[in-house]
Structures are given as structure tokens and as C-alpha cells.
């Protein structure tokens, strides 16, 4: 599976069809792969931004500066300033922690809930499996972004609600992946062996089987990290979820959108936050794609 936001995760099924050409990519060759190097470097950059962001910001992300309104990119303000004179670079750096933090929370929730449900469905089969899978089908009948949009709108605008809404849209993918693995792992000899020595079911699933069934879900998590950044930013671009004056990448693009329609055509206000989103997502996508080729060839 692959590709961005819940808005587009539906395309992800396609990418499963892409075969790994040379079966069994080795770790050694993986580290010489230019896409992986690019992907991992971008990830490192984004992670550094999230950790150090506020500490290395040259200016305050929220304090207005009437003297420096709408400045184009220059040595004092590398990415220019917005209509309140706030430094775009500082805001982009500060927002990294929020956006990346949301994306990690989304992925962690969807991954843990999804793989747990998938493991149970795949191991138990029967009625439990039927119920879980029918509910999964229903959730998948909504385009992910629409679902996230609807849930956030009904729950109200707040960061936790954004996390819940996007995580819910991605959970079915983890359920399906883990369930499929579990269905085959449960029939193996080591599963029989573990059963025979009297392990209780929860221990059998959690300790013996799940570690052998989790790889596809882990690889998927790398991709979901990137897509959920797109979703979060997409929601707040629409003014749903996180609003101004919070420094958030989608909010910043929305803010800059007004300015390309204005006389001055201040392009830098929308351009740089969007560019950073794209670089972050490229990082997660390239890394996720390569990891999948290496670890979980379809």
C-alpha cells in the first residue's frame, strides 16, 4: 500500500500491485539506494525541526512586528514575513512539532487499535471476525478525508478531535493487514507448539504470533505518518480542526492564500509552509516504499 492522506488512501490498494522486481532486496543494497537516502535525510530534517524547532527559531512565531509586515524573503527573514510581520521561517519551524506530533499520535492510535483488532479477527475467525470485518467495510465505504471532515465537524474543532477523526479513517488498513498475516501465522507449526504447551490465548496472540504478523502494519505506519500530515494540514486549510493564530502548516497556507489574490501577490506566505509539508511527506513516502520492498514484498 502507499500514498498519502485519507483523502487518497483509497489509491493505496493500487500500489500493492507493484511488484518488487528483484525479489529479496538486501539491506546492503538498500543503503545505496538514492531514493532511500533522500527519504531518510528528509525524515531526519523533519524530525530535527520537530525537536529543535522552537529553540532554533530566529524570531517569535506569534509576536507581531508592525515594522516588518509582508517582507519578501531576504537575509533577515529567509522565508519572508506575513501580514502581522511574523517570521515565516520561525512559524514553519514551530509548526513542525505540532504537525509531526499529530501525525505520530494518529499513526500510533490507528496502528495499535487496528493491529489489535486485526490480530483478534484473524486468530478467532468466525463471528468475531465477521463483525470486525463488516464494520471495517463500512468505515472504508467513506472516502477517508470525508470521514475525517465529518467527524471533526461533529465533534468540534480541537487537536484531540482531529487526531481521533484521522486515526479512525486509517484504522481499517491496519486491521486488514494484520488480519491477513494472522490468518496464515495461526496455522504454522510454532503456533501449534505454543498452543500445545498450554499458553493462554492472549499470550499466544500477543507474544508468539503478533510479532510475526506485524511487519506489513509497521511498514504501512511509515506511510500513514506522511499521509496524516496531509490530512491534518488539509483539514486546517479548510478552517476545520486547527485554527489561527496557531502556527500550523495548513493554517499558514490558508493564510497565505488570501495574499496571492491581493495586489502585492505575496507568494512566499503560502509557498514555504506548503513546500515543507511536501518535503516531509516525500520523506515518509520514499522511506515507506523502500521499506515495503525490503521487508514485506507482496
Amino acid at each position, binding site marked *: 500500500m502507499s500514498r498519502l492522506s485519507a483523502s487518497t488512501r483509497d*489509491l493505496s490498494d493500487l500500489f500493492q500491485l507493484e511488484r518488487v*522486481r528483484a525479489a529479496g532486496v538486501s539491506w546492503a543494497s538498500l543503503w545505496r539506494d538514492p531514493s532511500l537516502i533522500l527519504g531518510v535525510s528528509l525524515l531526519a530534517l523533519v524530525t530535527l525541526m520537530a525537536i529543535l524547532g522552537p529553540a532554533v527559531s530566529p524570531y517569535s512565531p506569534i509576536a507581531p512586528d508592525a515594522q516588518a509586515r509582508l517582507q519578501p524573503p531576504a537575509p533577515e527573514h529567509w522565508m519572508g514575513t506575513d501580514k502581522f510581520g511574523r517570521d515565516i521561517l520561525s512559524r514553519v519551524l514551530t509548526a513542525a512539532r505540532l504537525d509531526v506530533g499529530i501525525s505520530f499520535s494518529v499513526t500510533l492510535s490507528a496502528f495499535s487499535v487496528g493491529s489489535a483488532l486485526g490480530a483478534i479477527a484473524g486468530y478467532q475467525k468466525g463471528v468475531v471476525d465477521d463483525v470486525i470485518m463488516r464494520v471495517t467495510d463500512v468505515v472504508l465505504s467513506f*472516502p477517508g478525508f470525508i470521514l475525517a471532515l465529518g467527524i471533526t465537524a461533529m465533534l468540534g474543532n480541537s487537536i484531540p478531535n482531529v487526531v481521533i477523526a484521522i486515526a479512525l479513517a486509517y484504522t481499517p488498513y491496519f486491521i486488514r493487514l494484520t488480519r491477513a498475516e494472522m490468518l496464515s501465522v495461526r496455522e504454522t507449526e510454532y503456533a501449534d507448539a505454543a498452543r500445545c504447551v498450554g499458553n493462554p490465548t492472549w499470550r499466544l496472540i500477543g507474544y508468539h504470533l503478533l510479532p510475526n504478523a506485524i511487519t506489513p502494519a509497521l511498514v504501512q505506519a511509515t506511510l500513514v505518518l506522511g499521509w496524516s500530515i496531509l490530512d491534518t*494540514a488539509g483539514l486546517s*486549510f479548510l478552517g476545520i480542526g486547527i485554527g489561527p493564530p496557531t502556527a500550523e502548516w495548513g493554517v499558514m497556507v490558508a493564510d497565505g492564500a488570501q495574499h496571492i489574490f491581493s495586489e502585492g501577490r505575496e507568494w512566499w506566505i503560502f509557498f514555504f509552509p506548503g513546500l515543507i509539508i*511536501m518535503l516531509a511527506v*516525500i520523506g515518509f513516502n520514499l522511506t515507506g516504499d523502500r521499506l515495503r520492498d525490503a521487508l514485506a514484498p507482496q
Partner: protein
Amino acid sequence: MTLRRYLTRRILLALITWLGVVVAVFTLTHVLPGNPAQVRLGSFATPEALRKLELEMGLDKPIYVQFAVYLSNLARGDLGKSFKTGQTVQADLVQRLPASLELAAFSILLATGLGVPLGLVAAVKEDSALAQAARGLTIFGASAPLFWLGLMMIFIFFYTLRLTVPPLGRFDPLLTPPANVTGFFTLDSLLQGDLASFRQSLSHLVLPGATLAIVVIAPIIKIVRASMLGVLDSDYIRTARAIGMSLPQIIFQDALRNALVPIVTMFGIVLGYLLAGNVIVERIFAWPGIGQYLYEAILANDFDAIQGTVLLIAVLYVLLNLIIDVLYTFLDPRIRLG
């Protein structure tokens, strides 16, 4: 299993999913902690006004009664009333759906027209500059935020290069759009032989259509390349090469046909994506489709409109999946009807 039994089963499954979708939409709006009356009135509403509206909306009744009322309204094709437009939600949707479908159809045509040849080149001449460009486009399209892409298109092609019409809506607001036959402005104007209107509506489609096309071209290139590579590796292609057939002959007579199954499947998936992606693109380009309608409904807390639009999108989405599955069995007789 015979084809007829397979179809019956598949359609039954879709019906069950539809029922689930109705329950989910109902849950979304009635069971989740948010109070629809509160949402409509805002957080400063007086308790009296709140109680009055709750009574009016039937929110005081038990949840199963509310669901029964909702179901019986649905069965009569009644999606409720939008207090913002003053029309019924179904009338609003019928009015706006063609705009969304036209945009989706246009961008899918654009993406296919470019994506299929690029995918072919990427598979056949892997090291060519064009193949590299295709790869770059795939990464770009898969990672660029849709809203940023739309703004970039406007900034570059409208403001800087002055190549397009203003990115507002489907038609020049000062002119009369073509008489409504299909609701597709391009088709309607052609049907009436009105070339000026045709050019007008096409020029409005270009920017939003291209924005969506850049995003959906990524999976198209990937799928065409992957399925071509799979086919080109097979024995019968090696045989065709060995007996001296030319490369174009092999590609267009043998390989492409067999690579077509996943490619056609992809159309459905991409079309499904376009239904959802439209909220952002329709918002940026002021496109009067169902995405824009949903967006405005959410901002205005127009409860029935949100509910109806989400339901329509999900129902279309399930229908699309049904069609793909059925198409799949016709395209590839080897697929087991299990």
C-alpha cells in the same frame, strides 16, 4: 460458482454495506457526543432556545425512534431540508452533482491521456529521460498537498503567466451557461452547437482539472508501469520477441491488452478518490459542486445538508466498488468467482 450467483452475492454484499453506511451516517450525527441542536445554534444559545429546537428536530425522542424516522424519510428519498439554501437537500445535490462529476471526468481524462503513455515509457525504456521525469512526477503527485498545488497553479498560470481565465467557478458569471441537458457544461454546449460556450466551460475546467490530474497521475503511472513490467517479463512476450516482432507491435497488440485489467480497476479507485479530493479543489476554485456544498454546510452547521452529502458520497463510493468488481470478472476470465 456461476456468474449469476456471484453477481447476486456481490450485490447483496453491497446492500448490506449500504445499510451499514446509513447506520454510520446516523451515528455520526445523532449518537456522537455533539448535540446537533447545539451545533446549529452555537455555544451561546439559551437553554430555552436549545430545548425548543431539540423538540422541533425530534431529538427528545428515543434514539431508535429517531433512527426509524430517519430510515422512513430516506426510503422516500427525503434527505431533509437545508436551512441555508432553503431547498431540500436532494434538490441541492441534484443541482450540484453534475459539476463535480464533470470536473472528475475531465481530470481523469487528462491524467489518463498523459499517465498511460508515461507509464509505458517508464516500463519499456527504464533509463530514458522521460522515464526519469515520470518517476519525478510520481513522487511529486503523491506528496504535494492538494491545496498547495491548487494555489501554485493559480499563482503560476493565472497571475504570473496570464494563461487562463480567473479561477472562479465553472463559467463567466456575466454570461449565461448552456441550457441544462446533462448538467455537464462542456457536453451541453456541444449538444447545442455553441462553440463559444464550450471553450468558456473548458477553459474553466483546465486549472482545477489539472490540479487533480497531477495527484491522480501518480498512481496511474505506477500501475501502468508495474503491470507492463509484469507482462513484459512473461514467456509469451519473450516468444514474440524471439520470432522477430517489433517492440511497438508487441506492446500494443499483446502486452497492453493483458496489462489492462489492473489499469481499468484503477479507474474506479481514482474516480472514488476524486469524489473526496473535490472538497479542497472545489473550495479553492469556487467550483459549485457537492464538495463545495459540503464545505459550506459544515461551516454553517447545516445539519441535514452535511448528513445528506456524506451519505451520497459514501453510496456512490460503494456503487463504484461494486461496478469495479463486476467489471473485473468480465475483463479477466481467469479470476475465480469466489
